[in-house]
């Protein structure tokens, strides 16, 4: 499979006003991120809150402008595209948000919401044609066409998320960034939406970037998984490799912390509990940013930042000690 999207050395900083008269503070949300996405795959992005996963999704779509680096979409650097050209490119690149109700305009009907991207991106379409497309896409995401004139508040969270998905699909995109699309939903509805995304991916030949803090969900949907920690890539590997044989101590800690819905195994399990919480990105630790919570940290880790190294076919890891550590999970 060929790469459809390549991120090269992407860095994003934010500057924050600390107080009225104090100098502005710079926060590095993403640092030197490089990876590629293959056509037709689902790439999962996981990490704790504040690791930069949502910022990354927004930088890919140019909803935020990266400070450095390139976002190459089908051979074209999106960061260099002028506004109008980028707007046209958005037909190919869409996003689904976490809070389905908050991301829908309460004053528009469902039909208007779903048709909205078409109005801006395909103004040549006639109203009847637009409506026909809206109905077709509503059926594809499991919404009844007779709901077309209803307003968002009349819908439950799961149905509202279907509207969000329909709005993303209407432009016939090639890639969709799903930013925590099921985190706000009930368990049974979450499963329905995950199945729907899988079906739509198949049906429309989509490539997905799936951002979530929930490792079980990411594991379920992803071909490959990228683990972010404090704005840097800790590890990237196929879902199977990552689970069976994590190479980064942070990946291992995340995996053992995921609750297992199996009482006997949950009782037997040894949790590789991380101490403390994710440090502030305003003042990150020197060297490897994970070292303050890593039980394998040595002197070198405080001095030098580990590079993202090749660690077997299709996987890369950023840890000074990945070659010597035995991290495989006993019960995997």
């Amino acid at each position: 499979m060929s790469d459809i999207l390549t991120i090269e050395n992407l860095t994003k900083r934010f500057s924050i006003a600390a107080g009225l008269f104090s100098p502005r503070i710079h926060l590095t949300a993403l640092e030197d991120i490089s990876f590629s996405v293959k056509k037709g795959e689902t790439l999962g992005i996981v990490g704790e809150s504040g690791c930069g996963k949502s910022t990354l999704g927004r930088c890919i779509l140019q909803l935020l402008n990266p400070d450095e680096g390139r976002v190459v979409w089908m051979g074209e650097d999106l960061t260099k595209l002028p506004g109008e050209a980028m707007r046209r490119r958005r037909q190919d690149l869409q996003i689904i948000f976490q809070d389905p109700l908050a991301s829908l305009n309460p004053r528009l009907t469902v039909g208007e919401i779903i048709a909205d991207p078409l109005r801006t991106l395909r103004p040549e379409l006639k109203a009847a044609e637009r409506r026909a497309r809206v109905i077709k896409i509503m059926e594809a995401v499991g919404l009844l066409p007779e709901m077309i004139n209803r307003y968002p508040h009349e819908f439950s969270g799961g149905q509202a998320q279907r509207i969000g998905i329909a709005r993303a699909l209407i432009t016939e995109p090639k890639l969709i960034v799903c930013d925590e699309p099921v985190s706000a939903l009930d368990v049974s509805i979450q499963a329905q939406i995950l199945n729907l995304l899988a079906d739509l991916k198949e049906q429309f030949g989509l490539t997905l970037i799936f951002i979530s803090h929930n490792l079980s969900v990411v594991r379920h949907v992803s071909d490959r998984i990228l683990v972010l920690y404090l704005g840097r890539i800790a590890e990237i590997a196929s879902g199977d490799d990552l689970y069976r044989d994590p190479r980064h101590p942070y990946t291992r800690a995340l995996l053992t912390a995921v609750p297992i819905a199996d009482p006997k195994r949950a009782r037997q399990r040894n949790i590789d509990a991380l101490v403390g919480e994710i440090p502030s990105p305003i003042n990150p630790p020197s060297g490897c940013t994970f070292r303050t919570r890593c039980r394998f940290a040595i002197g070198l880790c405080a001095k030098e930042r580990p590079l993202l190294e090749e660690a077997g076919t299709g996987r890369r890891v950023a840890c000074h000690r990945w070659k010597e550590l035995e991290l495989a999970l006993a019960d995997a």
Partner: protein
Amino acid sequence: MEDVLRVENLDVTFELHQSEVRAVSDLNFGLKAGETLAVVGESGSGKSQAFLAIMGLLAKNGRATGRAMLGDVNLLGMPHRQLDEYRGRDIAMIFQDPMTSLNPSLKVRTQLAEVLVRHQHFDQQKAVRAAIEMLERVGIPEPARRANAYPHELSGGMRQRVMIAMALLCRPKILIADEPTTALDVTVQAQMLDLFRNLTTEFGTALVLITHDLGVVAGVADRMMVMYGGRSVEKGTTDDLFYDPRHPYTLGLLHSTPHVEKRAQRLDPIQGLPPSLEHLPSGCAFHPRCAFRFEQCFSERPPLAEIGDRRAKACWYEGPLKYEDVA
């Protein structure tokens, strides 16, 4: 062993403009010292309202009937002034978002000490000392320094620990935790669940864990109560319900949960949406979404019936619960 809390025939209703909505119907359960009961259900199942009712924390238009026996005292219908003698001392509740439960304008030490001054009649100094000690026990590093912080200066995980410390100050017999880890990252969640496990063994606290996350339940709960449409539909030990569920809804929840160990091709979600309490389906409230329904389910509501040792289910279907068996 005697129950530390016994709830009998609990009904919770809310007065609306034109109508009345019943959020909880005929709930019965007992809770023993040191045990962890998971109350599982989706939004609108009544799981939170049942326990808010027991704590006397219902919204103004809410009304609870039945009995909630703490020893030989009935908490339901007790005047708030009298209820305050028990709340915080014998029974405490923590919530999903600690920021909404902590007073933003008071230092942590002030809020914690107040509980001990109020309930245990400690003097201020002794109360602060005890508060700092408790902060240390719930795993807050540098507790003396953190005690001087305001809630907004702490991270989410720290705030949740402060909440737990506050709830535990008087060594309550019962701790009710409503989605206590939902807003936390998985590594912090693992620390919290560990803390809960220690707490029940160390203090003998009975823990009620209200959650929709079956992963959390599997790791900490001894028994489970599954709720749907305001009623308990299945009760039993955690192992029984996970390995041999007898209610189709319990089975459906288990099949809806993705597992980190394996990548399944598809999940088997429950079809449809959870019902609105204003328009509960006839008969069994779950029948419109149930793969095992038959005629009786449409018209008659199945009672919660004992099925063997400390198990109960509310379902007419008697066959084995396997998805392959149904079309």
